[in-house]
């Protein structure tokens, strides 16, 4: 039996990245991680291994993201172009910030799907988390990647 501490150590960074991808805000992402693991802690005794542990935790995390209406109101929208005057090589942190901003410009479910994809979840597992068919998820991921590529390209053009 896996202990809560082991589960937390294993999944907290992944959940944080997904929540950060959704909110584009470190503090809100931390709050969502906390809410997620409170729910995990509560639900762990009743977890019946009907799905994989990871799928279950990602479901909880993404449901908390969708539920956070107040988060949605405060979420920083992606404004492109930004820092127009600064045409220079970005640091990895800046590149990551650009990626988050571009993701923040997507719709809620697109943000969730692309965050799970970037996190490396298999598409079948993403389908279980979101509740769509595998085929549908594959098509959506393809479209979201195109959208994201366009946003990133738009940013590069304005640099």
């Amino acid at each position, binding site marked *: 039996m896996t202990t809560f501490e082991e589960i937390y150590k294993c999944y907290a960074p992944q959940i944080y990245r997904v929540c950060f991808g959704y909110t584009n805000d470190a503090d809100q992402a*931390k709050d969502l991680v906390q809410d997620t693991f409170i729910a995990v802690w509560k639900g762990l005794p009743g977890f019946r291994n009907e799905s994989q542990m990871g799928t279950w935790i990602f479901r909880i995390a993404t449901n908390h993201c969708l539920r956070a209406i107040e988060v949605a109101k405060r979420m920083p929208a992606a404004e492109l172009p930004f820092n127009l005057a600064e045409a220079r090589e970005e640091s990895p942190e800046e590149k*990551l910030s650009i990626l988050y901003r571009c993701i923040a410009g997507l719709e809620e479910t697109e943000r969730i799907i692309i965050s799970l994809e970037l996190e490396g979840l298999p598409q079948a597992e993403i389908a279980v988390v979101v509740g769509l068919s595998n085929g549908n998820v594959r098509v959506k991921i393809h479209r979201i990647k195109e959208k994201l590529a366009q946003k990133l390209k738009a940013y590069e053009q304005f640099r």
Partner: protein
Amino acid sequence: MNNLDDLKSLWHTAKTDSLPTAKEMMQLIRKFRNQKLRSKWLVIISSLVLGGLITGVMFYVHFKLFTTYVGSGLMAFSSLVLAMDKMMSIKRFYQLDDHSNIDFLAFIEQTRKNQVYYYTQTMVTVVFLCSVGLLLYVYELTYQHPLWCIGAYSFIAVYYAILWFVIRPRAFRRDAEKLDATRRRIESILNQLK
């Protein structure tokens, strides 16, 4: 930076060392685990205690008039209805997490409908039963003293008028806006998944 593998590598460079440790998270969980449900539990416990108290008084004190028993019964029943409604709400809350995103949105929509039902049906029933119960209950205490009777009934009338025509519409309007925002948001998210 457009290549997906590059994006994945970049994605995994996000710093996560500011997250609480497992030990700190356990402390946070102990602190916050029941905070969200605290107000619901408070309503349940208060309603049950009040209902129990009213019922206890009904059995231990011998009233002269039948109206007092009917009044007590109605007030106790209204407390029970309120407690049961909140218990069902808590039960739903505990089932909340084990769903896919689509099922979860349907669940939230059902919760929203339940909240509307609570405001338009359950709350009206509870307040009506409790008001009638109180009016009947007070009668035995005051019917031999006309002045007390007028005073007590005037006080009750003013109290319920404020509750019904001032406090309830305000609370309902405020929560109706929130519920409507939830409905619009759920509709928008569900459209994204079509």
